[in-house]
């Protein structure tokens, strides 16, 4: 039976790999999802068949309760709330890891890793790692959820000695893990959990709202490492394989997000970005006037264009403007205008956020392009329609070495003949940097709510 279980767990692991492999193209993605679900079903079925598993009633009850809640939430949630949903889900994986570590600590015989109070050394180390990473993931994700949901201020919360405090707590935690290995004491075990919970909060509060794509990916990665840690504790290869897959996936996403902002991972983690710094360049453009236009002007310009590139940002998500946007694009296409969408890697609050929202509004995915694939086309475009985005279009990132976003790859919207900026106000973006593009001759500002403005443009086009 044990060998049989090991083989089916291996099959489940392979199915998980195939699930991720399927995501290399939208056409194969749904097949990949099926692989993932079959793999999970196989893993759970195998576990239920293990001879030591006999308590079917509480197991089925627990799966029914959890599954019901999960299905309800996932079916009801708005696509715009996706980033906070992901953060919330990550927190649950973290807490589950804490509980499994706790259960294994209380009852080591169940997993064959020693007896109560006398657990094998290697298992204690792995267990405490799973516990600590799980606990950090739990509270860190809750803070990230709060920031994304707007329950907690998205502004970075910083105080003096913050990094020193975190480093100090980190060192204390290491010492406690050593102490646990020596004594095997339950008090130390739960003290590690408490410390890690506190550390999770402290690590995420200094990080600003727009850095959340990195943080959500990082927590995704942590939830994987926690699962792997538990896999080592329980001597289960499937947990190790899956944990490693998820961990490296989250790490790669974090890396891609950091590169999209030209910032190091460390710089993001240390937080504090997007506060009051960098208002120096504001003064020298204070006397320049931006051209402010109306929906009718924008409608006329776009209807007479031959190529329009739409650049969505977080503002589009907030205003839920994606459906109106697609309607506008439909009208333009009907008029024979070539319409494309340009997506910056860090647009929105999680990796791929804009793509999902556009897909929700029935925008065909072959009209949506990544930054490196479309950046050259702005020079041939008549109009760049920037909706709810700012920093990701800021040319100062290329020219002004004193700018905090200097070096960040940006979309070259300024190369289009006309740039239409849909924005709520003339204010600076998240990074606190002014966008010199607002004051260019070819730029027209459309001030207002992204959805309302797009709908007004549609009306003007139709009349």
């Amino acid at each position, binding site marked *: 039976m044990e060998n049989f279980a090991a083989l089916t767990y291996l099959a489940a692991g392979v199915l998980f*790999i195939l*699930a*991720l*492999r399927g995501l290399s193209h*939208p*056409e194969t*993605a749904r097949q990949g*999802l099926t692989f*993932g679900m079959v793999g*999970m079903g196989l*893993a*759970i079925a195998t576990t239920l068949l293990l001879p*030591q*598993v*006999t308590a079917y009633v509480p197991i089925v009850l*627990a799966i029914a309760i*959890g*599954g*019901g*809640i*999960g*299905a309800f*939430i*996932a079916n009801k*949630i708005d*696509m715009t709330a*996706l980033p906070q949903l*992901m953060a919330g*889900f*990550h927190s649950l*994986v973290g*807490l*589950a890891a804490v509980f*499994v570590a706790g*259960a294994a600590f209380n*009852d080591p015989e169940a*997993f064959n890793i020693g007896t109560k109070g006398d657990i094998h050394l*290697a298992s204690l180390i*792995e267990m405490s790692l799973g516990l600590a990473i799980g606990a950090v993931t739990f509270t860190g994700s809750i803070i990230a959820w709060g920031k994304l949901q707007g329950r907690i201020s998205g502004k970075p919360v910083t105080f003096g000695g913050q990094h020193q405090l975190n480093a100090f707590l980190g060192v204390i935690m290491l010492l406690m893990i050593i102490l646990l290995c020596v004594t095997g004491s339950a008090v130390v075990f739960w003290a590690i959990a408490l410390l890690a919970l506190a550390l999770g909060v402290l690590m995420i509060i200094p990080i600003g709202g727009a850095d959340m794509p990195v943080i959500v990916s990082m927590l995704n990665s942590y*939830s994987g490492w926690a*699962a*792997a840690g*538990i896999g*080592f*504790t329980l001597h289960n290869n499937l947990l190790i*394989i899956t944990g490693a*897959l*998820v961990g490296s*996936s989250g790490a790669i*996403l974090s890396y891609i997000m950091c590169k999209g902002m030209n910032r190091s991972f460390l710089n993001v983690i240390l937080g504090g970005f997007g506060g009051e710094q960098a208002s120096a360049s504001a003064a020298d453009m204070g006397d320049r006037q931006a051209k402010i236009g109306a929906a009718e002007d924008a409608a006329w310009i776009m209807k007479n264009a031959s190529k329009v590139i739409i650049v969505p940002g977080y503002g589009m998500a907030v205003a839920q403007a994606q459906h109106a946007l697609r309607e506008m694009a439909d009208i333009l296409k009907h008029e024979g205008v070539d319409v494309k969408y340009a*997506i910056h890697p860090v647009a929105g609050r*999680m*990796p*791929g956020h804009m*793509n*999902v929202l556009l*897909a929700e509004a*029935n925008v065909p*995915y*072959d009209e949506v392009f990544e930054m490196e694939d479309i950046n050259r086309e702005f020079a041939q475009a008549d109009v760049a329609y920037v909706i709810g985005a700012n920093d990701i279009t800021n040319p100062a990132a290329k020219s002004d070495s004193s700018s905090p976003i200097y070096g960040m790859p940006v979309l070259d919207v300024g190369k289009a003949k006309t740039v239409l900026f849909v924005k709520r106000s003339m204010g600076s973006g998240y990074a606190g940097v002014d966008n010199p593009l607002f004051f260019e001759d070819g730029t027209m500002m459309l001030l207002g709510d992204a959805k309302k403005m797009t709908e007004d443009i549609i009306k003007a086009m139709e009349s």
Partner: protein
Amino acid sequence: MAEDHRTLTESAADLANRLQDLSERAADLAVQTSDVISQSSAHAQPFIITGLTVFVLACFVGYHVVWRVTPALHSPLMGITNAISSVIVVGAIIALWPASGGFSLMAFLAVVLASVNIFGGFIITRRMLHMFKKKA
């Protein structure tokens, strides 16, 4: 009759002797097997080595597979990884009612939480991918 009796006791004694012989051999064999087992377990790697091998190779597989994921599907990627990382439910199920101790509330809660993620993660991913269908 007496002769019969003697042969019976003789054969009983004989049987007893043989039994003793057999049990001695069995004991011998048992000692040998336990020797072999302890030898082989001394030769077998501790799990941490096997686990690390699997872990490192899986990290490489993950690295190469995830880089091939198209950026447009990074959100569904998170959905799927979120769901599969809840495979931790396997550990929770084993811990739920171990033979040695009774019901474990912590393990029960872990199964509930992981199930929220499994169902939630797969369903939200299916919803996302459903939107990425090719449109006419």
